[in-house]
């Protein structure tokens, strides 16, 4: 079990493109840390730096107390599962999985029998017993993903690095497999870094989430912290669905602020705000309650989306989308909408 520490990690490509910008991060031993962000935010580069597939421009990478920053990938004892899975098409499932063990044969004093046993065990763990003799092209997407996972797990890495491992699968399979990935990683207590752009996947798999944007970490915390206490505008709008209203601060005290967005809203804020200051107010749709008190709104549209009804409201000229288990009213009706929770961020 290994603690991974990234200290002021920086990676610049071609002297111009800052892919990872002074990242400090600690992944505790046995923890699953999701690195979540939009495409191009640097999360894959971060993972490749930890794997040793890229050299950092500056900063350090430590596994426990060992500085591995300059160690080549072969010597770090990490295992990567890339987005494309990278199964070798000219090798069988067995040979793909056994590859890393065979390289370690002398060092770890492994016999061929021992290698076979470990491969069989890990294939059983990922539920692929009986497919050892097949080639990758003979497997389904889900099976290929499991082979890639088995190949990484069998070498008993200190750190498991998963780069959007479910991206190439259909939605239903993604949901099934993400549970399995979490179960297996937890069972083996492997320190895991899991890169994804899918927030639901991040929340389902990870113990903690590191939200990244433009090479920088925006917030690190448990899924509920990230969701309910976003550190900034990016996190608030990237995670979950949100309404964004521009307004002006009427009054501010500590972490609370009263904001006029066309109607009054009580908001939480991580900033020190002053009256008159312009802010962006973020309101989650599920935090808008229709039918009690609050601002007068007109229902413009009601749409059934399976798990909930989405209601489009016009309130003092502003458009808000609310979500709830029942249709609150018909289009054209006037209702009162109460905003239970909101955040105010400096633009």
């Amino acid at each position, binding site marked *: 079990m290994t603690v991974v520490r990234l200290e002021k990690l920086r990676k610049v490509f071609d002297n111009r493109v800052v892919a990872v910008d002074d990242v400090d991060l600690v992944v505790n031993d046995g923890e699953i840390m999701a690195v979540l962000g939009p495409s191009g935010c640097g999360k894959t580069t971060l993972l490749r730096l930890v794997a040793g597939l890229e050299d950092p421009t500056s900063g350090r990478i430590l596994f426990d107390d060992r500085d591995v920053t300059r160690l080549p990938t072969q010597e770090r004892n990490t295992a990567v599962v890339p987005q494309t899975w*990278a199964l*070798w098409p000219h090798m069988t499932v067995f040979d793909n999985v056994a590859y890393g063990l065979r*390289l370690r044969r002398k060092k770890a004093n492994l016999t061929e029998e021992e290698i076979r046993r470990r491969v069989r065990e890990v294939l059983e763990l990922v539920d692929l017993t009986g497919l050892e003799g097949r080639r990758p092209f003979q497997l389904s997407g889900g099976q290929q993903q499991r082979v890639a996972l088995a*190949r990484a797990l069998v070498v008993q890495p200190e750190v498991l690095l998963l780069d959007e491992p479910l991206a190439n699968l259909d939605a239903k399979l993604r949901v099934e497999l993400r549970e399995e990935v979490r179960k297996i990683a937890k069972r083996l207590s492997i320190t895991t870094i899991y890169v994804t752009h899918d927030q639901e996947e991040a929340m389902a798999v990870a113990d903690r989430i590191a939200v990244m944007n433009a090479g920088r970490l925006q917030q690190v915390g448990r899924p509920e912290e990230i969701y309910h206490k976003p550190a900034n505008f990016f996190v608030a709008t990237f995670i979950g669905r949100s309404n964004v209203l521009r307004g002006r601060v009427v009054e501010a005290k500590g972490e609370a602020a009263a904001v006029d967005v066309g109607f009054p809203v009580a908001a939480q804020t991580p900033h020190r705000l002053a009256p008159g200051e312009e802010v962006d107010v973020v309101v989650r749709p599920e935090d808008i309650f229709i039918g009690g008190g609050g601002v007068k709104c007109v229902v413009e549209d009601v749409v059934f989306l399976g798990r909930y009804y989405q209601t489009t409201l016009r309130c003092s000229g502003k458009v808000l989308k609310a979500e709830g288990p029942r249709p609150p009213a018909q289009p054209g009706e006037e209702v009162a909408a109460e905003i239970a929770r909101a955040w105010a961020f400096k633009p």
Partner: protein
Amino acid sequence: MGYAFLGLFLVLPLVFIFWQVLAGIGEVYTSITDPFYVNPSPDAFANAFFIRPTDPPTVVIRGPDLGVVLNSLWVAFTVAAVDVALGFVLAYVLAKYVFPGRTLLGLLATIPLIVMPFATAYVVRKILDPRWGTLNWILHDVLNLPFKVEISGLAAVAIVQSLMYLPIAYLNIYAALTRVDPTLEEVANNLGADERKAVRDVVLPLSTPGLAAAFVLVFIFAIDDVAAPIIFQDDPAARKLLSYQVYSKFLDQLRGQISPTAAFLALILLTISVASFLAVRKYVGLRQYAMLIRQLRPKSYTPGPLGKVLIYALSFPLIATAAAPLIGALTLVFADRWTTTPLPEALSLQNAAARLAEVFQNPLFLRGVVNTIYYGVAAILIMIAVGIAIAVAAARLKGPAADALDALATMPIAIPGLVVAYAYFLTSLQFTTALRGAYPDLADLLDPLRHPELYLIIGYSVRKLPFVVRSIYAGLQQIHPSMEEVALNLGDGYTGVLRRILIPLLKNNILSGALIGFVYVTSEVSLSITLGVLKGVGQDTAMPITAFMRERFESGLYGVQEAATLGLLLVAIQVAAITLTTRVLKTRYGFVL
């Protein structure tokens, strides 16, 4: 349209050759059992390699003389083996290592792609000349080694061809190595494999088909090549190759000596080439090419100090050696003379200017330039029209019809130009003889001795069609079928869809295919020196530049320099086209399978 064009102008003429062989099978059997054609006896190795007791001793390398058929096989095999081995070293260095000078090395590696027929072979002959050649000057006079080297006959032909076709091997191997997804190698590294193991276990197995395809392509080009044997034809052994024999018997046919043996030799040449091609057809089809040109950024390593030394010590000299014939050929234009000295003498710009002026003032040479451009443009127009039809059908059809068209469209790569020339000559003669009674005017129009231009243009179009088709096909693979489907759905017919949707979207691919096709047509040799000379050397000659180069090389020293000057014009055309295709149109150039 594709089937009709290739059926009429490729398949049918080849059938005629087969028919002529059958018609004269008795004579064929008598000829072909002569040891001149097949001689697998120990005597064949008698003069392959020996040391002549001169002062200083001369190491003589000629290669075994196993008869025409086996000579062609061993020479082509040796060339392919040498080129794949050296090409692999070069491709590996450029694909897998990052070092100062890498870009320059890559650029220099493509220099030998520029074709200057006959001139480059002539320069190698000068370099290998046992009395005054550059090689012996370096070995004996500069390095003071106590021996000389004489490389002649088939060995000399093999050396010329190895140098000529090295860039083809290198480019195809480079493409194969860089086609391997770098992630596959990275995962191997991550699991503990160092560079050597990762390349051995992952990269090499996955790029083996590309290496095999490179081997076969060089083999086909070498066995088809007639320029090198012609340059060394003073040595009887160099004439004992299938390509030279088919060429010289073609000339005999012009003098009225029809020979089924010639047809049979052409058939052997054809069979060997096509069989080799079919062995790797899966890896050279249109679909494979379209995947191939999608370049990935390969996994690369930084060499250590010893690695760098090896890279610089091996790669740059290798490239310099491969580029030497072309550079030597270009210096012929600037040199006053190159007779009994190891290097060309008295280089000056004035020489080049004077020679270029002579070329442009010579009405025959000008006619050759005009013919070359005319044939090139006419062939391109045909290739584009037919190429679009074939590419669209191959890309959009499914099933055996598409596979057959894919094979037919790429097959001309494997058909030797001499065989095409021979087939066209035979077929057209038969055809016009049959027509002459009833349709004398039509017979005159189709008579190859009166109008070889027609057959040259068609022959060029057939031979170089695959390169144009592939370029267009690759572009089609980038266009989703829904683009056409929407247009059809809105009411357009397929001709309209082709004109309004596909062709505009494919214009870069069509243009780059046309440029590549133009370069290959203008530098083509086999058809040019056979069909091109049917009207002789007169005011209305049909000879293109390459045929004039051949004619000038036989006419003595100054003829050699005139031929090199004509070659310089060819080089200018090629460089312009390569620059346009690679820099402006961003397309890969150069016989990549």
